[in-house]
């Protein structure tokens, strides 16, 4: 590698970045907007869920149970006189669930026990329905405990589950979504940055002039990689700052590990972009391929939002070739758990393999020839 030629190529690319607002926009404005949009738009924490409360025969017992729902921050209950009205409200989507106490609730509860509390949830959004059911169970369990205390007899159930959640005790979905988002967004941006710029050189005919110059393929590729690497790292830094400052995600791990992993990941994304544009040689096609092959897989197959273990096995195998999968896992660990080396080392090794694969492939399929 000739230092003068490399410096010339890098300076050219840097000047182009500075003069062309679109690269800057992709690197800085896009993560900013996307992170805000996703950060605020994507939340799995249900709050103020509208529910219907129906007591066929209201008593002190029933209102005791209902007051538990009224005090919970998760619910916004409305009382309905009968099931007909409550059902209609559920059908029209005004409430997401109905809590129904039969006329004999009080008598059974005070007598033999095991009085049924009817819960009807709208199962259309299955995930949401399960989360709501979980909240309802919580209210019900604390009501049982309160009842037992009132009567002076301890609550006796065979098995009591004590659960403890590590790394994210409050189960704030932001805390895991935001680090995952950074991975998704940087996949897209890294690939888009390089995919478009190399294709642009082919389109404008500047590539032919470069090819006919003494610069080697390695120099041309490194000359592309270095400026966009720094640009991408800038976007990454912006995303991390936003995660910490705007979304208040705690960073438990150390910053230098984070940036080491980010650098490695960025190489895979840039390498993929280079590969796409080397194959496509056309900005439109390159942009299309970049969108389809980076954004969607990173979104769906990275484990960022959907659990990988639960996928059918062919898709599970597919996730192994997606760099974002490793970066999502690394980021969630670094942000929430800290420098857990067994996890990080495994992921970094995978990222390194993918990065080397992309970069070597690009170098091998690019010749200084036009055919």
């Amino acid at each position, binding site marked *: 590698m*000739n230092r*003068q*030629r490399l*410096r*010339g*190529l890098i*300076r*050219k690319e840097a*000047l*182009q970045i500075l*003069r*062309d607002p679109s690269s800057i926009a992709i690197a800085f404005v896009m993560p900013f907007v996307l992170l805000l949009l996703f950060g605020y738009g994507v939340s799995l924490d249900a709050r103020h869920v509208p529910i219907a409360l129906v007591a066929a025969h209201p008593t002190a017992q029933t209102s005791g149970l209902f007051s538990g729902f009224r005090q919970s921050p998760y619910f916004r209950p409305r009382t309905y006189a009968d099931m007909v009205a409550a059902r209609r409200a559920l059908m029209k989507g005004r409430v997401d669930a109905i809590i129904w106490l039969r006329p004999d609730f009080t008598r059974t509860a005070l007598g033999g026990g095991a009085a049924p509390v009817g819960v009807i949830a709208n199962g259309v959004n299955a995930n949401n329905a399960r989360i709501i059911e979980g909240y309802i169970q919580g209210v019900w369990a604390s009501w049982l405990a309160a009842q037992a205390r009132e009567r002076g007899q301890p609550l006796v159930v065979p098995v009591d589950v004590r659960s403890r959640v590590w790394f994210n005790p409050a189960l704030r979905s932001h805390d895991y979504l935001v680090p995952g988002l950074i991975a998704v967004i940087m996949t897209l941006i890294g690939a888009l940055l390089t995919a478009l710029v190399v294709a642009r*050189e082919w389109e*404008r*005919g*500047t*590539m*032919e*002039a*470069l*090819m*006919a*110059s*003494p*610069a*080697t393929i390695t120099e041309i590729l490194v000359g592309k990689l270095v400026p966009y690497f720094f640009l991408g790292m800038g976007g990454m830094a912006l995303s991390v700052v936003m995660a910490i400052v705007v979304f208040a995600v705690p960073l438990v791990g150390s910053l230098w590990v984070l940036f080491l992993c980010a650098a490695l990941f960025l190489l895979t994304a840039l390498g993929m972009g280079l590969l796409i544009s080397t194959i496509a040689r056309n900005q439109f096609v390159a942009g299309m391929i970049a969108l389809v092959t980076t954004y969607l897989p990173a979104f769906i197959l990275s484990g960022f939002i959907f659990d990988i273990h639960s996928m059918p096995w062919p898709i599970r195998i597919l996730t192994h070739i997606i760099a974002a999968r490793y970066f999502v896992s690394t980021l969630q660990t670094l942000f929430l758990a800290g420098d857990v080396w067994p996890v990080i080392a495994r992921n970094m090794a995978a990222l390194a393999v993918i990065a080397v694969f992309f970069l070597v492939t690009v170098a091998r399929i690019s010749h*200084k*020839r*036009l*055919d």
Partner: protein
Amino acid sequence: MDTNTPLLDLQDVRKTFRAGGVRVTAVAGVSFMVRPGTITGLLGPDGAGKTTLMRLCAGLLLPDAGRITALGFDSRADAAGIQQSVGYMPQRFGLYEDLTAQENLDLYADLHGVPKAARRARYEELLRLTGLGPFGRRLARDLSGGMKQKLGLACTLVHPPRLLLLDEPTVGVDPISRRELWLIISALAARGDTGILISTAYLDEAERCGHVLLVHNGEVLDQGPPADFRARMTGRSFFATAAVPGRAIQARIMSDAAFLDAVVQRDGVRVVMRAGAQLPVLPGIAFAPVPPRFEDAFVERLRAASPMPPAPPAAAPPAPATSEVMVEVHDLRRFFGPFEAVRGISLRVEGGRIFGLLGANGAGKTTTFRMLCGLLPPSSGTLTVAGIDVRAAPAMARARMGYMSQKFSLYGDLSVAQNLAFFAAAYGLRGARRAERLRWASDAFELAPFWNTNANDLALGFKQRLALSCALIHEPKILFLDEPTSGVDPLARREFWGRINALAAEGVTIMVTTHFMEEAEYCDDLVLMSLGSILAAGTPAEIRARARTPERPDPTMDDAFVALIEAHEAQARRAS
């Protein structure tokens, strides 16, 4: 320096490409040499293989057979060695548009390893040579077309190469910039140690080369100094004059088998006889012998090699000068922001005339043309086409006009038939009338063999025919042609003008812009634009007469163009 050692040596070079499952031969056994101190011209029609040859010489493509040695390096074994020392300027030279002229030079200086110490002197020399000195800090995208080409050349020369490969450096450049580019190239060759290989579509440029290669279908048809080509044509070129306009003479002459070629020029027609043919006696036409040109030899060799027969220009009666005014423009202006691109021009075009709009790059002729076709609304002024106010009733005006753009805008993924059928329907033709016009297009333009071929897969000449037939499908009264022959080889250009002349003879008004000054001679009336206003208007003879000086008593259209525009620009500079 041993002037006999060739800098570039091609021996029986062959190259094929795979295109859509078919092997296409681009270069079929080419051998030639480039020696120091000479300019070797590569001439041939489109698709002859000129660009492929250039890329082969630069080591960007490898030959399938044969060998290429450039500066002692074998292109197969040591392409990197060639690229170290050769200067190559691709057809669309890759200037980085968002870098300044100086930054572009710096990049190529870095790439070619020009030491920092040597740069100053080299830059100074290049900027003086190209006249780009004052524009060093301007972004490349803000340079005019001609300046871009000069900057591209300067970048190629930043490390003085011993072998220079230039692929159509003058294409799409106005006559003034073309002259300047040739001055630089000639000066370089005159130094004696550099060999230059240049491809070009302008046949008059062949005369400036020391050695010419005539390429066709990937083969070298002929090679030698341009004088040799001319010598073979001695005694076969004449200038025909008569009382009728040149176009009418041309139609008469081309119907006679004795003639090989006829081109309207000045106030008559320049004709070339077939080998061995006798000059026939045509009543009313006087023939005077003229010296042969390179182009005469080119046409002869290509007519012999090409299976495509010359299209017979329809022998129609001379244009019936209808008194109807087809285009009337009064005080037309167009602003782009604060910039006034067209500064209050007025003109009128009468029916059945061929009206030419000329101008340098950026003179405002494209803007004017787009306003005339209704593609761009004027900022002020009145504009009627075929008696209809374009701004008030655009649809009615459009139904009477045909338009063919420089890019031969066709739907590339649609077949010839589908393109024609669509435009026929778009102009509201239906039923039997539509079928009849489609048949006409197929017959008149010989499109039947390609009826189901995608427009993208047509050769350039046929694309041009299809574009013209689409523009004429509704029998417009006026036809707008925007640089209709750019990139098309001389033979296809002749055929095209044959058709245009026939159309004019039928009474269709033609409005045309062009970069080829020789084509301006086909026009009945001309308007020469510069810096947004009309500089000169009149018949070709009148325009030429305005550039007459004691030193140049009989200027060509090219001379007139350069002289008038340079004078006007100088005046404008003084005024500002």
